Structures are given as structure tokens and as C-alpha cells.
């Protein structure tokens, strides 16, 4: 079947289309120039915005820590209930929605691809089971590798090529997509009740530093030619004064960059951009980080923007989560994933009247507005850490409208308002920049060449928003921005209309991408490695890798490695 979207204002930054009135034609799940099938369905989208389907680079929607959060928070579910629909299942949850509800809500906002950013290799099976149960969207997961014993040993012995071969095996075994680093070295130290304070602190029992881990994995990433860069959650995250650590982290891989290709992605950067020495004098370090990002081309970041709401924090950063528990006194969970990583969950409420929370809110927006190129800074809330993903429309309205920001600025903590520079920023994103920060830029950073644009042969994932940019003054009518981005007029997934006016009309499965790394030599686990599995893991080696037929809809992305 072919589908023709007629006369929309098309925003397709990767192909240089900026709001021109065009037709988009799809057939067989792809964007095409000419249709062959006689069965042509025409939808008139005149006066509406047409964008590629959204691509979320960082959102915790599946996995063991997400499920632990669900167990920990029955009170999060009962206030937000989705009733069974004609094609949809029932579900619950505000900050940690159940899997099906997650898929439906993303599709209603026009998102069609979502990345799960923290998958402990040991919990990969669980993560994939949940991803299989998340319909409507394509997804992929990043395995956590920065505190893996085997990786740390290889880096200690300076065996980067062996390390690359091992990670190639891990990507295949866990069906992962990119290398995720969380507080590199710190989580291993946390196993002994310690943490690392800077990127040059030694990691206990290994005698290496976080700097070596970051550089080592960055080199591995290059050797393997993985589609995405290394995806880094910095050391000292969530601590006042940590912007220096972030600058050092970005700078330590600068010499590994070739030309203008990014080599490092700093995720939820808002949490890593604090000046000050303690919580009472915390200030924004956004300007310094933005200056660095503006001057260098080897870095991309995503925001981790806060919205003032009740949410659940969950990361693999065990020591950070413990600190958050001490700060908030809320119920909490902490977990040690054998030889691999750690994790923690703490419910949290961001309050407008709190100096710290209000400052955090300004930092996220300052990052987005100070960094000039939207190809370097992407919209996320680190769902659900800074806010649930359902707040994206609200954040888009803040980015697009100075008036929307000013309205909220009047209501936040006075000290935070007095100290922030957000009040002086006039910049407003236009729709093209929003399209970059939410789909084109993320797809490019992730190496998803068939996503995030509407060129021929791209996936037919399209979002149509009922918003007329020629008629409206978006800066003033920011309520309409929020409303439009909350519910698409049409969401098209794989060439089919799956959601219409905020209602899911067809349930589709969505594919799971993973990096199928082809090494020069066949990559088999050594008998020594298998023996270590017997010694240190609670899972047998034979049960560890996930066979491809285990996934409902597996889509390997072939990658040719240099080792």
C-alpha cells in the first residue's frame, strides 16, 4: 500500500528542507519517489507540520532497573491509568509506565525510535524481553561496559585490540548497539563502598584511572566502527562543581577525533554542569560547557532537562543514587550487578520553589540555548530521571518560546531566578531546530542513516503535527506548541498510520536494532574466559548470550570492525 501526505509544511533538516510545502510518498515501509502499487491512500495535511518520526537518544523505558522502579512505586501507578482500548492494552504509570503504555505514549507524541541507554550485560535478557513488549517504536540498547572486569583488565594491560574483540563479542551476546559508560571506575569502587572523585583517581584493585577507561573505550569504539560514539554518564554526576570533571572528560578524548566526526556523547549533561562547592551555592556551569561544545566538534550532548514534577530517578550509578537517598530521605534501592555494574532507584520530586531544583531547571535550558548548533545538543529528560518523557512537548514549548520560559521563571525560587542568566537569553528554537534536536540530530549521532529524515529510502516513519507555523506566532502562542507536540495529527510507522489525533489506531511491533560486529577473525570465547564465568558469575556461560531468534523482531546492523 502507498500513502501520500499532501501539502504539509515539511521539516527535514538532513535533506535541507525547511518548512516548504511538499508531498511525502511512502510505499512498502520506505519513503519513495514514485509509487508502484495501485492502492494509494491520500491524506491531506495542508496547514500541518510534517517531520520525520522522533528519535530519542536516551530514555530508560525497559530493563531491570525500570522494572525495579515499577515495583518500588505502586503510588506512581494508581493516579495514571490507561483503560484498554480497541487496539491497545490497558496499563498504568506516570513516571515509569508499563511497557505497552510506554509505546503508545511515545507514538502519540510522534516518536518512532527510542534508545534504552543502560543495559547491564547480565540483565540483557530481561531488557530485551521488556523491549519486545514495548510496541509501536523501534529500539536498541546500550550495554554498560565501563566497569566490566574483563574490560578493565584489558585496559590495565593496555590490550586495546583484545578489548575490542571482547566487546564485539559482548555486542553480539547481549544484542547491544553502543558502548555506555556510567561513572567509569566509580561503580567498581562502589563495590567496596568507595567512589572516584575525578577522572584521575585510581580505581581500586585495577590501578587504572577513569581517564584510561574513557580513552580505552573510545579507541575500542573506533576500532569496531560502531555506529554511535561512546555514550558517557560522567564521573561526579549530580555533585556541585562537577562541570570541571565534565570538561576534562570531553577534553580527554579530543586527540582521538578525526576531522569533525564526534567521538564522545555526554548524556544528560544538565546533571554534569554544576558550579559551586555545595548545594547552598550551586550555580550553573552551562556557559562553560556550552563554550567548549561550541568550539569543538568532537562532542555531542543531550540535555536531561528537568520539569517540575514527581518522578523516579534510576541510573546504574549506585553511589550517586545512594547520595540522592541521603539527600531526600526517600525510599531507595541499590543493587550490585556481579562483576559488571551497579544500580539504584530513588523516587524524587522536583519543586519550583527549591533553589537547587530551580537552578537545575535553568541549567538544562541554558545548555540548549547557549550551544549554537542544534546538531550537538539533543532533547532528552533522561526519562524518568529528570522528568517523564511525556514532558517533551512542554520542554519544546520552553525552547521555542521566550514567553513560555518567562512565565515559569516568575514562579520559580527567587534566589535561583536572580542568579541565573536564563532571564537574559532571547534565543528561540525554530521548528527546524526542534526537528534537529529531536530526530535528525539524534538519528545522525546514532548512525541510524535510515531514520530521522524523509529522503528516498528512509524508513517511512513520519509525524504530522497540527500546527500552522505561517499563521501562528509560536513565541506567543506557546500553549499551542505544547498541545500540538503532545498529540500528533498522524503518526506513521513503517508506512502505516498508527496514531491519529492522539489515539492509537493500529498496534505494531517495532524492531530491535543491534550492532552485528564482524571482526576479521571469528570471535569465539576462550576456554579461560568460560572458566572465569564458572568462578565469578551466577549465570552459566551457555545461558549468557542471547540468541537472535529470542528477539521478536531482530534487525542486526552490520558493522565491519578493524580487528
Amino acid at each position, binding site marked *: 500500500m502507498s500513502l501520500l501526505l499532501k501539502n504539509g509544511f515539511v521539516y527535514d533538516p538532513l535533506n535541507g528542507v525547511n518548512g516548504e510545502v511538499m508531498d511525502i510518498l511512502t510505499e512498502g515501509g520506505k519513503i519513495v519517489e514514485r509509487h508502484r502499487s495501485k492502492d494509494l491512500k491520500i491524506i491531506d495535511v495542508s496547514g500541518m507540520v510534517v517531520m520525520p518520526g522522533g528519535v530519542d537518544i536516551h530514555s530508560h523505558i525497559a530493563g531491570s532497573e525500570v522494572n525495579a522502579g515499577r515495583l518500588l512505586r505502586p503510588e506512581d501507578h494508581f493516579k495514571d491509568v490507561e483503560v484498554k482500548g480497541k487496539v491497545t492494552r490497558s496499563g498504568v504509570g506516570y513516571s515509569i509506565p508499563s511497557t505497552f503504555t510506554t509505546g503508545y505514549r511515545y507514538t502519540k507524541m510522534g516518536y518512532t525510535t527510542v534508545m534504552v541507554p543502560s543495559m547491564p550485560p547480565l540483565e540483557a535478557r530481561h531488557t530485551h524481553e521488556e523491549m519486545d513488549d514495548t510496541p509501536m517504536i523501534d529500539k536498541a540498547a546500550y550495554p554498560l561496559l565501563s566497569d566490566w572486569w574483563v574490560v578493565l583488565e584489558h585496559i590495565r594491560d593496555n590490550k586495546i585490540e583484545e578489548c575490542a574483540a571482547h566487546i564485539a563479542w559482548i555486542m553480539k551476546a547481549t544484542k547491544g548497539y553502543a558502548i555506555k559508560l556510567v561513572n567509569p571506575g566509580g561503580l567498581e569502587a562502589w563495590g567496596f563502598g568507595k567512589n572516584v572523585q575525578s577522572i584521575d583517581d585510581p580505581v581500586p584493585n585495577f590501578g587504572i584511572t577513569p581517564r584510561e577507561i574513557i580513552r580505552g573505550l573510545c579507541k575500542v569504539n573506533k576500532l569496531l566502527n560502531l555506529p554511535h560514539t561512546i555514550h558517557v554518564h560522567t564521573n561526579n554526576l549530580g555533585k556541585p562543581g562537577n562541570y570541571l570533571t565534565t570538561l576534562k572528560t570531553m577534553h580527554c578524548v579530543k586527540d582521538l577525533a578525526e576531522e569533525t566526526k564526534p567521538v564522545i556523547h555526554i548524556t544528560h549533561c544538565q546533571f554534569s554542569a554544576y558550579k559551586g562547592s555545595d548545594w547552598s551555592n550551586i550555580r550553573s556551569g552551562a556557559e562553560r560547557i556550552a563554550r567548549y561544545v561550541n568550539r569543538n566538534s568532537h562532542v555531542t550532548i543531550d540535555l536531561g532537562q528537568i520539569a517540575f514534577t514527581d518522578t523516579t530517578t534510576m541510573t546504574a550509578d549506585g553511589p550517586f543514587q545512594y547520595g540522592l537517598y541521603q539527600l531526600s530521605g526517600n*525510599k531507595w534501592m541499590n543493587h550490585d550487578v556481579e562483576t559488571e555494574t551497579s544500580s539504584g532507584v530513588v523516587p524524587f520530586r522536583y519543586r519550583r520553589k527549591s533553589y537547587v531544583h530551580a537552578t537545575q531547571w535553568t541549567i538544562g535550558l541554558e545548555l540548549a540555548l547557549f550551544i549554537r548548533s542544534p546538531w550537538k545538543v539533543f532533547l532528552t529528560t533522561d526519562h524518568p530521571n529528570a522528568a517523564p518523557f511525556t514532558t517533551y512537548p512542554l520542554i519544546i514549548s520552553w525552547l521555542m518560546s521566550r514567553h513560555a520560559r518567562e512565565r515559569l521563571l516568575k514562579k520559580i525560587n527567587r534566589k535561583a531566578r536572580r542568579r541565573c542568566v536564563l532571564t537574559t537569553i532571547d534565543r528561540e528554537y525554530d521548528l527546524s531546530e526542534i526537528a534537529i534536536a529531536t530526530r535528525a540530530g539524534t538519528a545522525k549521532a546514532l548512525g541510524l542513516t535510515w531514520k530521522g529524515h524523509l529522503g528516498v529510502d528512509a524508513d517511512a516513519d513520519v509525524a504530522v503535527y497540527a500546527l500552522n507555523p505561517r499563521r501562528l506566532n509560536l513565541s506567543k502562542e506557546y500553549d499551542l506548541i505544547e498541545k500540538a507536540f503532545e498529540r500528533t495529527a498522524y503518526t506513521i510507522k513503517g508506512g502505516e498510520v498508527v496514531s491519529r489525533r492522539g489515539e492509537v489506531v493500529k498496534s505494531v511491533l517495532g524492531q530491535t536494532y543491534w550492532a552485528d560486529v564482524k571482526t576479521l577473525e571469528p570471535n569465539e570465547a576462550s576456554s579461560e574466559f568460560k572458566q572465569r564465568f564458572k568462578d565469578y558469575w551466577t549465570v552459566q556461560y551457555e545461558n549468557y548470550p542471547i540468541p537472535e531468534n529470542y528477539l521478536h523482531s531482530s534487525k542486526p546492523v552490520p558493522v565491519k570492525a578493524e580487528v
Partner: protein
Amino acid sequence: MITLTQKHRFRVPIHAENITPDIFETKTIDEIKILPVFEGNRRRVIADLFKVDDDSSNEDRTIHLVGDLTKLKKIGAKMSLGQIVVDGSVGMRLGEGMRGGTITVKGNADSWVGTMMKGGLIEVLGNAGDYIGASYRGSTEGMKKGTIVVHGDAGSDVGCFMKNGLIKVLGNIGSFAGINMRDGTILVKGDSEGRLGAQMRGGKIVVLGHVPSILPTFTINSIRRRARVGNERVSGPFYMYNGDIAEMGEGRLYVSKAKNPHLKVYERYLPS
């Protein structure tokens, strides 16, 4: 007055959150008859389950429920005005999140009476179950305001995460009364099964009857002649304890001296 009389015996739970004065007020009697209620997983209307009579000679819009309503959940949920009178016993979550008005139950009530309540008055003339005035499972937002009076006995965990307001139990009470309490007052006229105020951080629990023991994380403060409960004063004398120290709490526990001679040992720790 609108009277709802049970038509047949209810076998499965019924979600009755639509039975509130707030919803009834704006509707005619025919509209009330077709208000949806879920009986188990079946969608029904009120007229399927109840005979609905409107006594139009009576101007007052009290909702009068008659029958064995132990399967009816959430009667009067979120109501903010008016009155509900129940001639019989009711099920769980009576007056959940209630903001104002009055509910009177002439029989017994099940657990979670007045959970997350924010105002108003609930009176149960019989016994009530556990978790009266508590928060939702996992939440720390318990009852914030209002009054709950139970004339009979009450179960355990009464006033869990209570933030303010008043709970009066005129009979006996189960264990863990005032667990995680933040503020407000619980008065128990009968005996308690103990573990009073576990993890409480603030508020006041007054017990006029027997208490098996006091938790080790409470310290004796003084002997008081009377205690203040809402606007009234209750005469003692009482042993007054502070706690829960494990939570750095500043809660106050008043326990009758006359009914608890075994607590005399604490007197030697009284500051002289």
C-alpha cells in the same frame, strides 16, 4: 433525599466511586440511574444494582444507601460536600481522597477508611478495618485534614503516614497505630495491641486503655495530667514518650498510667 436500596446480593467487588454527592448533585434522578459502575469487570449502571428512590418532598440531597454493601468500594471517593448515610456495612476505601462533607456508616467498614483524606468527617458506628486514614501503598501522603471516628474497634496500621487531622477510635485498636505518622492526632479509648508510633516523626497518639509495651526507640519524657485531643481535653494521668528516635522523630505518645501499671519501670528514667 435519594435512597439507593440494594436489589440483589453482590458477589464480586463493585467500584462505586460515582456514588458521591458531588456527582449526584448535578444530575436528575434518571441520569443518576444510568451512572456507570463496574461490577467485577462488567460495566453496569446504578439502576442494575440498586432501586433508586427520590424523595422530592425532602429538599435535602443526602444519599441514603441501604443493604449489605461490603462489596462496594470507594463510596464517596473525592466528595467535597453533602452527606452520605449508609444503613449497613461498607467495603474498602470508604471516602478515599474525600475533601469535605459527611459520611455516616451504621454498620462496619472495611480497611482503608478515609485513605488520603483531605477534609470532612467520616463516622463508622460499627468496627473498621486496617489502614484508616493511611496513604496509598508506597506513598507518603496520608490523611491531611478532617476527622474519622470509629465507634467500635479498628484494625492495624491506623493513621499510616498521617499528615494531619484527627482519628478517634472508641473501641480497641490493632498493632502499629500511627506507623510513619508525620503529624495529627490519634485517640484510642480502648486497648492497643502495641507497637505504637513505629517510625513516627511527629504527631500525637493518646491511648486510654492497655498497651502491652512501648517500642525501645521511644524515651519517656514526663507524666502529664491531661492530653489535648482536637478541641477537647482528655484526663489522665499519662506517661508521655517521645520518638521514634530511630527516625529522629518528635512524635508524642500518651499512655494511660492507671491502665498500665507494668510501665511503671519507666518512671525511674524520668528526668528529675
